């Protein structure tokens, strides 16, 4: 690989060693988790200033635990480990995450990590869209201090996150919703090993009368700088009986919240049209899991 300014490749055993390397190289130190997207960053010319790579796989942060509150996922958990974790279970509210994990090929599942996938802030990834549809919080760690943030606050621009230099995502927490809830994710892809043209996830929770108490609709695949939440679609659903006609109106409303881009995978017009189609399918799938 062509990291023309690379001076050091660190594989630290402790957080203090991470800090030492970050202190030395500042913003030109790049944290490496699973490493499955570094080519993507390099191809976009984003690594030309990198002077140090810091491989954090020895620091731990792995494992999946199901608790009364929900699911806790160590940031260095690979997609394969997460997919096979008993804690993922059959709960309908986690449907979006389970759906999203079925798409990547084996080699990516074995390498890519949940935390790395989020920190990359790539608008074409699937897991961020799925997790943004759930009540997802992150705990981060830097030099012994910790903080919590909503997933939405991690994203600060195209391939940009809001982490301080040397601040690592330690854990991803998914809070279990109250009542009847379900979610789903669906992706449009050109081949079985490509980034999304468009992806969409939907979370819905209903009360005893079948009215929508809570909804989250999210999209990715080049419809914004990062995964996007469509509050316009959610407003259509809230307080209503979830009929197919209503789901279609919600899906059509995503247009107000997304800015589809044009690239070699698809035109902006095609992305917009497919964003509506795939949002509708994700909503229908989530609804079917409620019943």
């Amino acid at each position, binding site marked *: 690989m062509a990291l023309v300014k690379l001076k050091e490749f660190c594989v630290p055993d402790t957080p203090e060693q991470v800090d030492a390397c970050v202190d030395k190289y500042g913003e030109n130190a790049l944290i490496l988790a699973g490493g499955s997207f570094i080519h993507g960053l390099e191809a976009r010319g984003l690594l030309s200033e990198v002077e140090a790579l810091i*491989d954090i796989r020895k620091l731990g942060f792995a494992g999946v635990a199901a608790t009364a509150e929900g699911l806790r996922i160590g940031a260095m958990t690979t997609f394969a480990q997460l997919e096979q974790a008993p804690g993922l279970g059959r709960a309908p509210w986690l449907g979006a995450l389970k759906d999203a994990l079925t798409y990547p090929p084996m080699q990516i599942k*074995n390498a890519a990590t949940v935390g790395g996938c989020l920190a990359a802030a790539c608008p074409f990834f699937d897991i961020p869209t799925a997790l943004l549809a759930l009540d997802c919080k992150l705990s981060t760690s830097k030099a012994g201090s910790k903080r919590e943030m909503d997933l939405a606050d991690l994203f600060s621009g195209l391939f940009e996150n809001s982490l301080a230099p040397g601040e690592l995502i330690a854990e991803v927490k998914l809070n279990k919703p109250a009542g009847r809830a379900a979610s789903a994710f669906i992706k449009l892809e050109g081949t079985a090993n490509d980034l999304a043209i468009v992806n969409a996830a939907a979370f819905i929770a209903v009360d005893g009368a079948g009215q929508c108490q809570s909804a989250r609709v999210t999209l990715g695949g080049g419809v914004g700088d990062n995964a996007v939440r469509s509050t316009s679609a959610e407003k259509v659903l809230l307080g209503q009986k979830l009929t197919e006609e209503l789901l279609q109106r919600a899906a059509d409303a995503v247009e107000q919240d997304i800015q589809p881009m044009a690239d070699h995978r698809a035109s902006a017009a095609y992305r917009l049209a497919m964003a509506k189609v795939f949002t509708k399918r994700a909503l229908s799938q989530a609804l079917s899991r409620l019943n």
Partner: protein
Amino acid sequence: MKQLISLEVNGDVHEIAVEADATLLSVLRDNLELIGTKRGCDSGGCGCCTVHVDGKAMYSCMMYAVSAQGRKITTIEGLGTEERIDPMQEAFVKEGAVQCGYCTCGMIMTAKQLLHDNPHPSEDEIRHGIAGNLCRCTGYHKIVEAIKTAAGNGLPHMKGQ
């Protein structure tokens, strides 16, 4: 800038000085001359470079050699024995699942993990399982048949776990 690393490949430990940003693929091929592992797209899209790292199929073009230290790496050269090739290789030969052969080594390494995880896959599961490996000759049909044949014959345990 070079770094001295120690790599365990097919049971042998090698001390090698590598560029810090050298990929595992380039070290396998260019330093260790294990050229069974192929360089295709060199960007995680084609699967030709698939090897096993701690028993898991990985794109060796996407892993830095420095990151591969302390892990058990198995390449196509590490399958089978001097006397007998691996049953997955035998199945590919028997079914004629090879044309130009460029994808074959990666395809076999992927198929090994596929059957390790799921010894009796359906055709859909096989096709989904090899989705990270491209073949531009066979149309996949004979590769899928070979994996079915290997599944029918049973396979020895994966190495490197």
